[in-house]
């Protein structure tokens, strides 16, 4: 098992209680498309995996119809916590070289599963990617940074890559593949570790309100630029630091607190 696409059977935001509208998010479709393209490039089979109830077989069959060669569903409720989902997936794809995911799911939006999978596998990670170039043994990925900047990554296996929804358009399945996928076997497996219910945060992710001074500038355009921070976008306001993982995590938490995203 070397190329894996992780997909999620997710309800439609407009019809959250109607399974008929549930399916694969655009981000997961992009991830699947890159996995299939990489499979073709490297001549390797593509495994598609999901964590969910029986209804989730639909997205696996869609993936099989598009060209995936193997489908695995880890039995779990839709309310499973992201950390447990990542653990369950990682336990079943321990030998994966490339893992493709959508950047975040439509229903939760935390984007936590891909980095957790990477952590479990000890793999490189390129998260929230907006452009991908497949180059055989490596992948060039572009990430969006604040202020309109971009980060260019050269990714080598083993790696987890999570992509935004607009990065690729999933191919249309051929009719004969669609027919055979409908009858294909889905490997249903139990989770290897307990699955807990996700705890949802009722407060939206946003910083505390801050008092801002009135923008300065001669013209409305100048003031608008100050307000939107566009003028400062090109200025190098960030800093690059090299820290041990624990110190880096502490630094991030400190920054989040400083910016008002965390209260304690």
């Amino acid at each position: 098992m070397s190329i894996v696409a992780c997909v999620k059977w997710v309800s439609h935001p407009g019809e959250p209680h109607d399974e008929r509208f549930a399916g694969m998010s655009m981000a997961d479709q992009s991830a699947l498309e890159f996995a299939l393209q990489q499979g073709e490039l490297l001549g390797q089979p593509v495994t598609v995996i999901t964590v969910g109830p029986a209804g989730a077989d639909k997205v696996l069959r869609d993936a099989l119809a598009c060209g995936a060669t193997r489908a695995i569903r880890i039995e779990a409720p839709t309310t499973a916590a992201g950390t447990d989902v990542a653990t369950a997936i990682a336990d079943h794809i321990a030998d994966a070289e490339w893992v493709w995911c959508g950047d975040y799911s439509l229903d939760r939006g935390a984007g936590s599963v891909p980095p957790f999978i990477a952590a479990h596998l000890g793999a490189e990670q390129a998260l929230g990617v907006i452009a991908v170039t497949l180059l055989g043994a490596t992948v060039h990925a572009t990430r969006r940074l604040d202020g309109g900047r971009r980060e260019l990554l050269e990714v080598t296996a083993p790696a987890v890559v999570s992509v935004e929804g607009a990065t690729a358009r999933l191919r249309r399945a051929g009719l004969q593949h669609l027919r055979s996928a409908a009858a294909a076997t889905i490997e249903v497996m139990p989770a290897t570790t307990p699955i807990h219910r996700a705890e949802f945060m009722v407060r939206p992710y946003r910083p505390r309100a801050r008092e801002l001074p009135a923008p300065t500038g001669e013209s409305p355009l100048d003031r608008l630029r100050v307000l939107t921070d566009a003028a400062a976008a090109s200025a190098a306001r960030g800093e690059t630091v090299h820290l041990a993982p624990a110190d880096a995590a502490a630094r991030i938490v400190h920054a989040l607190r400083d910016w008002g995203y965390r209260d304690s």
Partner: protein
Amino acid sequence: MSTPDVDVIVVGAGPAGSCAAIVAARAGLDVVLLERGPFPGSKNMYGGVVYPRILDTLIPNWWEEAPIQRWVTRRSTMLLTDTQALTIDFRSEAWGEPPYNGATAFRPDWDHWLAGHAEAAGAQVLTDTTVVGLIRDPGGAVVGVRTDRPDGDLRAKVVIACDGVNSFLAKEAGLYEHTDAKHYTLGVKETLALPKEVIDERFAVRDRHGVDIEILGCTGNVNGGGFLYTGLDTLAVGVVLKLPKLAAQKKRPEEIVAGLKQHPAIAPLVQGAELKEYSAHLIPEAGLTMMPKMTMPGMLVAGDAAALCLAAGIWLEGVNFAMASGMYAGEAVVEALQANDTSATGLAGYQRRLSDTFVLKDHRKLHRAPELVLSDRVQHLYPGMVANVAERMFRVDNPHPKPGLRRILNEERKKAGVRRRDLLRDGWTGFRSFG
């Protein structure tokens, strides 16, 4: 010649298509049911009354599982003028008990449910797949369909076209001699949300009982009719409009619906409702006049694709005709494949079944009704005439004595500009159709 991939391809997972697939699959045939929407019913906007008695044999006790909104226990026919309303209202508690009569239903739910039975019977339901054309052998017989998917050709011994009112397959096969806009109406519908308790109170119903109101005289200068149906916590209100008249009047259909909702007899019923949905759809209303040839070598046509919709004033039925024609198409295909004969002769059992049952018997009996109901006199003269007669009959005009009905009728007929011989002719036509 290529080997067929399957025995039967059914195009369109509406009521006709799913019923055809159920029958064929239960007979052990290899059936593929193709649907262009993401799920059966997803493309449908119908929110009217379904009469499912025909399902008694196909799905016994269907009422225990069918996704209905309300059982229709009140049927009203309403004549409107700008300021008047005359209503004939009937209610029957028997229609609110098994085996029931009609029910309001959302077709996305209904079609999804029926397609589930087709799948359970063994048919393979493939969604998001649009059929774009027919595959024919050198002799012209249909041997499969072409879809919009890569590698999208699918071959079969028989194709059942249930692809709806604008059936591209029936037209491509040349089964329609001609199509004319005057044979179609445009149905437009608003779905309005109201709490169930409010609907119960306004329409004088309880539990799952509901109301079907058919309305004449509510479409201004455009020939047509109106309707108001009760869902569980929604109302479906809309109009059906004759296409050429609509085009000639250059009116927007939503304006006509808005006018209906503002009528003094309708406004209190829909007051305070929240608009949830607006949709429109063509309806094949000309009955026998527009029906295509039902079979050709390798293909049958059923449902709206075969113009099997009964629009005869007091009867507005389509889903039951679709389900029945689908069932009969399925039976005929089973018979033809058992005889290994999918020629026009081999598939003739379909036309025979349609002719021997209500499907074509009702259409034959009522073949004059659509034209009568949509005629200018019935649309624009009679509602006002009848409403005025009723108003004068019930008006107490003392010290004048009560006038006789004959005198009122005669005076109102003349005032409306209706010639006696036209009235008699229309009455005779109506009697022959409905009598």
